[in-house]
């Protein structure tokens, strides 16, 4: 399995500001993803973080709102830009390790509250 860490684990932010969440994996992985889980809801995929190129966004999510970086095979960041209270959610990164296809492991999540 892959061990994934995220930071911050939680934050309270003011509307209109931006927050960058970091995701670190303990070994090289082929795929990294970012999910959002709004209160009482299941996980929704935001985007696939592509190493060395622009992220691939799901319908309803755009780069200007959720810029993503993935400079190497073990690290990615998600920025939540110009936040509003509707962005209050848990944000989770996941990774799929090379050789263990389709078993995604999740980071501990970042709980974000926007006031």
């Amino acid at each position, binding site marked *: *399995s892959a061990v994934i860490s995220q930071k911050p684990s939680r934050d309270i932010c003011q509307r209109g500001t931006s927050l960058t969440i970091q995701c670190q994996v303990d070994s090289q992985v082929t*795929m990294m*993803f970012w999910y959002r889980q709004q209160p009482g*809801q*299941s*996980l*929704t*995929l935001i985007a*696939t973080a592509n190493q060395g190129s622009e992220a691939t966004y*799901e319908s309803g999510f755009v780069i200007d709102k959720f810029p993503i970086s993935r400079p190497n095979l073990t690290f990615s960041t998600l920025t939540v830009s110009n936040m509003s209270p509707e962005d209050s959610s*848990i944000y*989770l990164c*996941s990774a*799929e390790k090379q050789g263990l*296809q*389709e*078993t*995604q*492991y*999740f*980071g*501990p*999540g970042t*709980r974000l509250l926007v006031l």
Partner: protein
Amino acid sequence: EDKVVQSPLSLVVHEGDTVTLNCSYEVTNFRSLLWYKQEKKAPTFLFMLTSSGIEKKSGRLSSILDKKELFSILNITATQTGDSAIYLCALPKGGGSEKLVFGKGTKLTVNP
């Protein structure tokens, strides 16, 4: 459109009870079905199922897949309060993607 439906959405039982959680799905080019347990924030991986009729077991938890009827069940025997969590079922999207589509989850509460 790929779809994952879990039932029940919530369940309250007493310690020692046995529970069965259900996951039905519609996905093109099925490859696998995954079960996760989510207690606070992070979903933790439980099982990956790829073949029909082969039970996967880990302690008091077991799961089986029926690819003909397009569903899976997750059984928990002799439940404990520590089993209280949301149980999520997920499948890779069709078309060869590694992206997962999740069900809404079953919230299990085990009372002492």
